[in-house]
């Protein structure tokens, strides 16, 4: 019986649930014996010139081994995003100017961890405040520059062509609106951490919490100016990343540099407060959407203008509008699509990837546009979507966003979601509540989405080795941090070899064992690394057959795998001699290494229907139900897949309702604790209704697409749309995310006022 598609229970959980995971800060590795503890002095001001830094008192504090400022560090300050103006480098420790609250200014090294904060308080920094640039429109004016040498706050412009004034000329109806896709924090429960030790061989062992060991190694080596072979990155268990742990943080290299400088291992683990200003944040796009078409519901032209916030130092966030532009038309077959994006720096935390990374921004924009257009012509939001989606016979479909959608049945996904939710009945309930004038109204939101997975690195490697004791070992270049690869990869190998899942160990995140690898991000793992494990299994079988042929004195063509016994047998010859993988391994190492290259990205899609209740007297929104069709091709393990969808849907709902990183006009963060930052718990979420749909992709032999981000991308627009829909009878057409009680209540007040 095939193991594929079955609910194999996660093999990683017994340890997580009993002994607990071992995160970077938990390590008791002997290489870290005698480590110093790093405490960073961080700027309390968003924008200022530093007039002096006095570290003398701190040097005298108990346990202090060294206190360093930027002047002590002989490394070139790194540009954290290659395409940004070269002046926008981030100092290792700020010396002349600070550009966001939380920017490191001095490094304190102490014998014991608890001594660090006391000493750090004694570092005396004089700041002369500068006007803070917090709003992207302010930044665009270039009146206050973060990097005067650069001469501008703009760090990137995508599509410099002026918009065509006649773009919407043949549209009967045109609707335009500025909307905000707000900034959110990844808020991974494990904060950032790094530990470094240099060996006598001149190599650095660097333990970090990250989504990609090999990428982190290359970046850190580059920053330190050493060869990548000199850095050995090891990822212990990683407690959540959500995109914010893609790529190395400059702190990692600083830790390694300090370890070399002091000749002692150095450990660093940030506090929650530091994490909420220091770790990269996500989204943050100001979007202007303009949509035009005819009164019969046909959309003809769509334009998306984006101003994105890179934060103080350009990082991956500068790139993400590229994804947003690619995915601008969403699931729709629109004649004319135009988009442009400008990315600016502001005196805030840097931005980078966050679950969906550029695609949710595109989806929310087009979905809001569809709703606005539907409202304008008085059409049902589900109907308008079905009229405009790409027809199934058009695949592979090259979009006006310039990408090729591999496979999809978008209208079918919408129909499945409508059917599951009994959409028509929901509308009846809504109508009845409106007629009664209830204080609590309901709203229904429909989203249709398509996204890119495996959009970065298309290739991934895997090695597979069977041991004489019948166990197997998989090394993968992907890098799980909660997803369940140990279970999934073992299933893929088990399916082919017949070795039971509990005898297959999956390892990752050690650059000495896996020198190459793309890590886990962009929902790429299964369709690249998973397929590589599948391919490695087939190659291992070929190798085994070649060896078995001699032993069994049969030709390779006559051999097959007996998965019940994890052995090679002669086809159609019951009772004849067999040889197991374990026996083969006993004679000679049985190991393969392979690279699978899909050469392209895949495009999972789906449709969500959300029902919310809005208390019109208080503005409070409660998500009552959400039905989600998330089609990522065949499902390897429904348990893992549902877990990804649940988490994704939760994060999408969170963005729609609750989460927002807020800075005051001086650039002070107002949401830097978990009491203030609104991420939800299970109590704020309904049970999710998951609807199955599986459309394979042709680009890999197993038909897999990625599922990691789909839920987030589909749920946020459905829920936002539902909130607006609940209030549409008041003339409300849009409320920005997060649709907090305050914001919803204010929208109602404004609508009522306008009416009166």
């Amino acid at each position, binding site marked *: 019986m095939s193991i594929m598609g079955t609910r194999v229970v996660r093999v990683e959980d017994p340890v997580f649930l009993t002994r607990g995971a071992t995160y970077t800060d938990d390590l008791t590795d002997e290489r870290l014996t005698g480590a110093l503890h790093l405490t960073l002095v961080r700027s309390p001001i968003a924008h200022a010139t530093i007039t002096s830094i006095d570290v003398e008192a701190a040097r005298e504090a108990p346990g202090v081994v060294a206190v360093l400022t930027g002047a002590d560090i002989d490394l070139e300050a790194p540009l954290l995003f290659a395409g940004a103006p070269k002046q926008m480098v981030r100092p290792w420790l700020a010396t002349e100017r600070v550009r966001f609250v939380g920017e490191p200014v001095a490094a304190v090294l102490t014998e014991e961890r608890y001594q660090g904060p006391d000493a750090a308080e004694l570092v005396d920094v004089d700041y002369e405040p500068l006007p803070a640039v917090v709003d992207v429109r302010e930044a665009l004016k270039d009146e206050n520059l973060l990097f005067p040498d650069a001469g501008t706050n703009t760090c990137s412009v995508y599509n410099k062509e002026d918009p065509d004034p006649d773009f919407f000329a043949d549209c009967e109806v045109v609707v335009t609106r500025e909307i905000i896709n707000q900034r959110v924090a990844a808020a991974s429960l494990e904060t950032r951490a790094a530990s470094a030790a240099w060996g006598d061989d001149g190599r650095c062992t660097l333990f970090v919490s990250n989504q990609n060991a090999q990428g982190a190694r290359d970046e850190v080596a580059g920053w330190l100016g050493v060869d990548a072979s000199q850095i050995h990155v090891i990822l212990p268990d990683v407690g959540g990343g959500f995109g914010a742990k893609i790529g190395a943080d400059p702190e990692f290299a600083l830790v390694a540099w300090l370890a070399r400088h002091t000749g002692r291992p150095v450990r660093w683990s940030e*506090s929650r407060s530091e994490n909420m200003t220091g770790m990269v944040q996500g989204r943050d796009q100001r979007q202007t959407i303009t949509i035009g078409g005819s009164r019969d519901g046909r959309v003809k032209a769509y334009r998306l203008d984006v101003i994105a916030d890179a934060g103080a130092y350009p990082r991956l966030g500068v790139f993400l509008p590229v994804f947003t532009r690619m995915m601008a038309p969403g699931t729709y077959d629109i004649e004319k699509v135009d988009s442009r994006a400008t990315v600016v720096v502001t005196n805030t935390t840097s931005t980078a990837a966050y679950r969906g990374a550029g695609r949710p921004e595109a989806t929310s924009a087009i979905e809001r546009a569809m709703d606005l257009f539907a409202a304008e012509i008085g059409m049902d939001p589900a109907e308008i979507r079905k009229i405009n989606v790409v027809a199934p016979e058009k695949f592979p479909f090259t979009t006006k966003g310039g990408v090729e959608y591999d496979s999809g049945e978008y209208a079918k996904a919408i129909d499945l979601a409508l059917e599951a939710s009994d959409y028509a009945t929901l509308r009846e309930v809504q109508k009845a509540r409106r007629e009664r004038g209830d204080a609590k109204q309901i709203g229904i939101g429909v989203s249709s989405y398509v996204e890119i997975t495996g959009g970065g690195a298309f290739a991934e490697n895997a090695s597979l080795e069977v041991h004489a004791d019948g166990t197997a070992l998989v090394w993968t270049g992907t890098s799980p941090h909660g997803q369940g690869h140990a279970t999934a990869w073992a299933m893929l190998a088990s399916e082919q070899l017949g070795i039971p899942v509990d005898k297959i160990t999956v390892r990752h995140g050690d650059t000495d064992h896996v020198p190459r690898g793309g890590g886990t991000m962009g929902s790429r793992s299964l369709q690249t690394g998973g397929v590589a494990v599948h391919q490695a299994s087939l190659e291992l079988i070929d190798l085994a057959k070649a060896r078995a042929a001699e032993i069994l004195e049969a030709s390779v063509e006559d051999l097959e795998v007996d998965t019940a016994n994890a052995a090679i047998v002669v086809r159609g010859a019951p009772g004849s001699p067999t040889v197991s993988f374990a026996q083969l391994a006993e004679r000679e190492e049985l190991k393969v290494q392979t690279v699978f290259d899909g050469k392209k990205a895949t495009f999972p899609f789906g449709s969500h229907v959300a029902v919310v209740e809005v208390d019109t007297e*208080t503005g409070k929104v409660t998500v009552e139900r959400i039905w989600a069709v998330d089609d990522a091709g065949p499902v390897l393990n429904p348990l893992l897949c549902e877990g990804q969808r649940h988490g994704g849907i939760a994060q999408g709902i969170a963005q729609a309702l609750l989460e927002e990183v807020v800075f005051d006009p001086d650039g002070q963060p*107002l949401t830097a604790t978990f009491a203030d930052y609104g991420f939800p718990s299970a109590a704020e979420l309904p049970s999710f209704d998951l609807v199955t749909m599986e459309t394979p992709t042709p680009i890999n032999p197993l038909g897999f697409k990625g599922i990691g981000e789909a839920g987030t991308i589909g749920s946020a627009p459905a829920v936002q749309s539902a909130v607006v829909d609940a209030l549409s009878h008041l003339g409300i057409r849009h409320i920005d995310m997060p649709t907090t009680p*305050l914001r919803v209540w204010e929208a109602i007040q404004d609508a009522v006022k306008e009416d009166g």
Partner: protein
Amino acid sequence: MIPVGFDYARPDSVDGALALLAEHGEDATVMAGGHSLLPVMKLRLAAPELIVDIGRLRELNYIRVDGDEVAIGAGTRHHDVETSELLATEVPLLPAVARTVGDPQVRHRGTLGGSLAHGDPASDLPAAVLALDATIVLRSPRGERSVPATEFWTGVFTTAKEPDELIVEIRVPRTGTAGWAYEKFTRRANDWAIVAVAVVDGRVGLVNMGSTPLRASATEAALAEGKSIADAAALADEGTEPPTDTAGTPDYRRNLARVLTRRALETAAGR
């Protein structure tokens, strides 16, 4: 998130604790559940030199009927208030309010006395105690005194308690099971209230509508005059000075106070 260093003492009696407070004056800080104190220490917003831990003093942990009142030891955990069978029949408002505090971990640590002493206007229990017309019993080496809840809170995080005094007991009138309700408005289940309203016997306590827990006096007066619930509730925000933060503007909070008061009064009327 590492506090400034401090000394730690765990006296084995209230008298022992009082002696330490008398000896160390303002340098000493009492810790009960630690769930308000430790967060501010970890953020380095407070740096007491000596922590006097009263969290394990059993003599402060009780709930018993005493004449017309229920006497509750200051060290009683929120969880014990929440699950008290005695309170469920004598003063059901208190368990209902305690149930809304934070999450189960917080409720197993935090104490009633700590919550009142901390004096956060966004806390739940102070407004309930205020609406109940309770009495707060303070003890110091100078003796014991009782302060009506209406006079206990004097400003944000400040109370009528002297530094050498401990709250030892809270005395609450036995209300019976009728006429009470608690409406707490939050974004998330385990948040502090954006606004909350406690109603008992026609008295109304407001959470997070000013620098201290408040009584909605205008509403109470209107009810006493026999006005309708709707009319009385419309006055709930009179005389308040609600704060501004990311969760709410003063206008929004005023609206919430009126809506929640109406809802709480309606629920109370049905009980």
